[in-house]
């Protein structure tokens, strides 16, 4: 029997295995790696673990594919572990390996794979802070004309002349979505102008939290214009949280109440064209804005003015002319130029076959 065991073990080749603390994690994990010979037809790999080299091993995992790595998630931090790997071809053990050094799992304080993200974020923040500080001194920072935002006053005015209300649609975003926050900034401006012209602003909402924020925003707009008496909370209401139910409801509002100006500002999905085309059919002036790239073509085709992507984000700075906000827009533009240069350099390097360069590794964060 012992001879048979010895013969059995004698057939198994040694295999080098490494066990180490899984990097860039919150602990509780050890990674074990080993090598496979290409001549082996691996049927199964057994992985054993022990906390003491003199204690028996416990089988923790059996793999049925020729893998070369395993992550053990059942370990406790700061405790030493030793591993043994047995590789089988059919029922025959072809290789065996054991670690002699203990592997200890710990939590890391920094995810080194995200170093590139941190560097870019710090550079970007530095640009923004620099321009914010510059804006405190030089309050006349130039920002180009954005046609959609310039047209807000005209749209509200025309709607008032026609004796029709203004419809403001905030899309399908939640308050946690940045386009929704940007939309609130534009809503405030619209409410302010509507208060000046004594027009009604109707805001059907997709989300209850957004409804509350919109009510406060419109109220602020009316108060700033000096007409808090004209504010009607019942004009800003929750409609439904169903996408096409919302589209149907808003279309119904458009057909019945015939607004003179329709604002479509926020995050939209497939219902964008339904809303825009219905708005066009009633002859309203339409100003749209979204960061949903797939919906932009529909808005550009169906509405009079479109705020494309980041133009929506610039709206609050553009409309308020607040120096600090304008500073962030400037910073954003400068960092975009930096990114353009990096993209150009990377493209040229790829085009001329300069492989495995620093830029590829730098941006490899996942």
């Amino acid at each position, binding site marked *: 029997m012992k001879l048979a065991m010895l013969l059995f073990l004698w057939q198994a080749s040694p295999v080098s295995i490494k066990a180490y603390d899984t990097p*860039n994690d*919150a*602990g509780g994990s050890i990674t074990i790696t080993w090598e496979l010979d290409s001549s082996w037809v691996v049927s199964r790999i057994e992985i054993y673990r022990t906390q003491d080299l003199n204690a028996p091993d416990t089988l923790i995992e059996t793999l049925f594919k020729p893998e070369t790595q395993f992550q053990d998630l059942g370990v406790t931090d700061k405790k030493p572990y030793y591993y043994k790997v047995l590789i089988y071809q059919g029922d025959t053990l072809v290789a065996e390996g054991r670690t002699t050094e203990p592997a200890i799992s710990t*939590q*890391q*304080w*920094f*995810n080194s794979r*995200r170093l590139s993200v941190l560097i870019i*974020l710090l550079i*970007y923040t530095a640009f*923004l802070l620099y321009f*914010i500080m510059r804006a405190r001194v030089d309050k006349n920072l130039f920002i180009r004309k954005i046609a959609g935002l310039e047209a807000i006053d005209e749209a509200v005015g025309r709607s008032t002349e026609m004796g029709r209300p203004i419809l403001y649609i905030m899309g399908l975003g939640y308050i946690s979505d*940045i386009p929704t*926050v940007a939309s*609130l*900034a534009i809503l*405030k401006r619209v409410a302010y102008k509507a208060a000046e012209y004594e027009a009604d602003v109707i805001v059907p*909402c997709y989300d*209850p*939290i957004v*409804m*509350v*924020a919109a009510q*406060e925003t419109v109220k*602020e707009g009316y108060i700033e214009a000096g007409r808090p008496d004209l504010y009607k909370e*019942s004009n800003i209401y*929750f409609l*439904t*949280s*169903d996408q*096409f139910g919302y589209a*149907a409801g808003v279309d*119904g509002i458009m057909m*019945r109440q015939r607004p003179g100006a329709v604002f479509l500002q926020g995050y939209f999905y*497939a*219902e964008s*064209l*339904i809303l*825009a*085309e219905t708005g066009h059919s009633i002859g309203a002036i339409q100003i749209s804005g979204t*960061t949903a*790239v797939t919906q932009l073509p*529909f808005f550009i*085709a*169906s509405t009079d003015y479109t705020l*494309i*992507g*980041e133009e929506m*984000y610039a709206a*609050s700075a553009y409309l308020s002319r*607040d120096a*600090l*906000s304008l500073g*962030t*827009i400037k*910073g*954003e533009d400068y*960092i*975009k130029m930096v990114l353009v240069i990096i993209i150009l350099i990377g493209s040229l390097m790829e085009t001329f076959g300069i492989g495995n360069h620093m830029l590829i590794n730098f941006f490899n964060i996942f």
Partner: protein
Amino acid sequence: MKKEIPLAITFISGFLLVLALFIPHKPFGNLEEIFNDWYIIVSGFTMLLGIDSLLEYNFKKIRRKEKDAPYSLVLILSFFITLIWGVTEIVRTPEHNPFSPTSTFSKYFYNSIFMPLQSTMFAILSFFIASAAYRAFRAKEFNSALLLVSAVIVMLGRIPLGQGAAPYVITVIFLVFAWYFYAESVGITETGTKLLYILVSVAFIALIYPIGWVYLKQHIPSFADWIMNVPQMAGKRGIMIGIALGGIAMSIRIILGIERTYMK
């Protein structure tokens, strides 16, 4: 203090979440999940707010006997019927699920009313796309003519009949453009410009056969793919980079308290 406390909460939570992206060590590593869970719980309760707003608005319309009051009545009745029916099926069915196969809610409401209504709303898009395309794809200038031709090529490239129809469509489009440039040239007196317009017109006619009947007849699906994978992708990536940068700037403005429109 009314403004300072919310701003402080915004700053601390925003900063912590940014830190959590880089620090796997507990408690930072799990922060995103924890905050997400809190948001889901809170937003569940805010649905009550929404329901209150919806019912109050529509009840008011009925009370005041406004012009659209019948629609409000339909809405309120639908709301309560759906709610009561769904709850009844939760109690009644063995799986305690209104969408189980034995449920009348699933059979008569979901399959017969809800599903057809939702599909219909999505299907309405086809009509609107046709009218929007008819109105928007006009060759007012070079950019819009390019957009028009690209749209036609992609539409043809995506359908099985595309390869058969492409030569005829390209022939018609190029003939229209050729006629237009020739007609424009008639009214021009300056020789150089006149010749240029006539050349462009002739070029359109000359290109009908090689482009329409040779190249696109064979390759329109792959050319449509190229339009989607190369120029379309490039433009979209550019816009997406801008949106991402704008989003970061906006987020920093919110975290630092420069942007306050979301709060009172």
